């Protein structure tokens, strides 16, 4: 962090976003899903595909779709024909890392209009995408024990609960809040009204994790259009500006860390906040979308992002501060727990949602208070990746 200089050629604004529905299985191929998401984003921005200068595609492991070189496969559906195109991948963090890569394209001055697309088709992995997840483990030290990926979350959740002295009831409140928030999202997969009792009684997977603590695998796609300031001025009176980006990874030696605090998220957030001149995140951030593949993860990441002190996040949730009409709304879209978890395409409920909230276009999901600054964050792999993006509707 010491030597980082944040030189850039021009500011970057977001003027359009789109996403497909998120469901467990979709008929469309990955190319068709990318096409639907891009079409919706271009419609909102008021642009045509010929206006796009460069394309960034984000998509998680090839093993889900079953197509090696997935980026190249999805090219024509993502509008990548005949223009500079690249694929980025950093596991689950791709949902916010792809817009960060789009930011590089525009901020460097190499492009004035950059399209960012994320797509995921987990249903191709039959019968369950878990079978592709098991190859993330170290082949020598971990795979012979026949682990399931849920184990690593369960181990982290137990550690978080132990160090911060948090009960499962408080963590279950997150699942209840997000699934209820998602009832207002047209693309939601598992939106429903549940209670804390339902969560605590649901099927045990790897205790303390139970079925209603987990987000489902999904198919889906999302897209964003990022432009330079002079283009943004022609298209809209209210662009949303990207004021800070940050990313940081930790090692795969996750057993050598104390899991109760995500220091890689804190590092990434520190970088993004420094760029965005944010010194007190709790006061200066109006709306947040941390990554919530599990309910305790929302609390874990809130603390990593500095939105709560260590151990304070469950208290804020219990007091209603993180509800849509609270002082610091968290996951107003319903997050991954309510809308679905198509790994990279979660950009639709993270980056796209903060954009829509700051542009006051979130419809029924719009938070009650006035919003100026928002933060979205994604996480990935063996408890390793933190990617953070700060946006603002004031320059």
């Amino acid at each position: 962090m010491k030597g980082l200089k944040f030189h850039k050629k021009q500011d970057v604004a977001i003027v359009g976003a789109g996403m497909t529905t998120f469901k467990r299985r979709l008929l469309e191929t990955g190319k068709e899903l990318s096409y639907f998401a891009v079409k919706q984003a271009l419609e909102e921005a008021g642009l045509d595909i010929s206006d796009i200068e460069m394309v960034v595609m984000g998509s998680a492991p090839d093993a889900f779709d079953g197509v090696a070189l997935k980026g190249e496969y999805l090219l024509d559906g993502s509008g990548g024909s005949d223009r500079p195109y690249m694929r980025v991948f950093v596991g689950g963090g791709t949902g916010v890392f792809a817009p960060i890569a789009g930011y590089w394209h525009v901020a460097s001055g190499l492009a004035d209009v950059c399209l960012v697309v994320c797509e995921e088709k987990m249903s191709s992995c039959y019968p369950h995408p878990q079978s592709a997840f098991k190859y993330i483990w170290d082949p020598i030290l971990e795979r012979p024990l026949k682990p399931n990926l849920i184990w690593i979350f369960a181990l982290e959740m137990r550690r978080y609960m132990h160090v911060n002295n948090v009960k499962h009831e408080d963590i279950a409140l997150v699942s209840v809040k997000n699934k209820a928030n998602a009832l207002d999202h047209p693309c939601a997969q598992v939106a429903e009204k549940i209670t804390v009792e339902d969560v605590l009684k649901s099927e045990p997977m790897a205790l303390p994790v139970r079925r209603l603590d987990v987000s489902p695998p999904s198919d889906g796609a999302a897209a964003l259009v990022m432009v330079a300031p002079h283009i943004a001025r022609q298209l809209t009176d209210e662009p949303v500006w990207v004021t800070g980006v940050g990313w940081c990874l930790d090692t795969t030696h996750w057993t050598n860390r104390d899991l109760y605090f995500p220091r890689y998220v804190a590092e990434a957030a520190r970088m993004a906040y420094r760029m965005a001149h944010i010194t007190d995140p709790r006061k200066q951030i109006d709306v947040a979308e941390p990554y919530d593949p599990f309910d305790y993860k929302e609390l874990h990441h809130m603390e990593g992002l500095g939105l709560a002190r260590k151990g304070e996040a469950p208290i804020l949730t219990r007091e209603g501060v993180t509800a849509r009409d609270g002082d610091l709304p968290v996951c107003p879209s319903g997050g991954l727990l309510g809308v679905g978890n198509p790994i990279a395409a979660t950009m639709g409920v993270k980056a796209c949602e903060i954009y829509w909230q700051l542009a006051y276009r979130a419809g029924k999901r719009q938070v009650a208070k006035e919003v100026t600054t928002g933060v979205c964050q994604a996480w990935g792999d063996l408890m390793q990746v933190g990617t953070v993006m700060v946006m603002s509707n004031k320059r």
Partner: protein
Amino acid sequence: MIEKIVDPEKLRHFPPGGGKIELYWIYTSGKAGEEFFRKLREGKFIASKCKKCGHRYFPPRIYCEFDFAETEFYEISGEGCVEAFTIAKLDLNEEPMEEVIALIKLDGTDGRILHVIKEAKDVCIGMRVRPVLKKAEDMQGNICDILYYKPA
């Protein structure tokens, strides 16, 4: 400092004998693919044409990749002429075999199909070929529902 291991017997591989990666994939055909295989069951071939620039796609797609406009399906004969071919002498497992694989430009489209040519004494570029399909009740809904191409 670390001692280098120079005896290859000591440098281990794990697991001994190799570890299998167990994966199983189901690829849905998508909206355009569903339409294509449905029409194939009736013995018909379809391609798609961009409503804006008129580019004729085969295999059919629901979008034009150049101007992102919608496309409409239309019928084609399924016949075409050979643009390129190769005689494959080894199969997937490197066992000997003999098969003629060709890139066939289909009439009425800007696209080509990759398939096998049988019942041909000599294959040459520009040769006209037509498809031989499976019986409708045997069709599975994938590209092998076209059994092979033969000289027209």
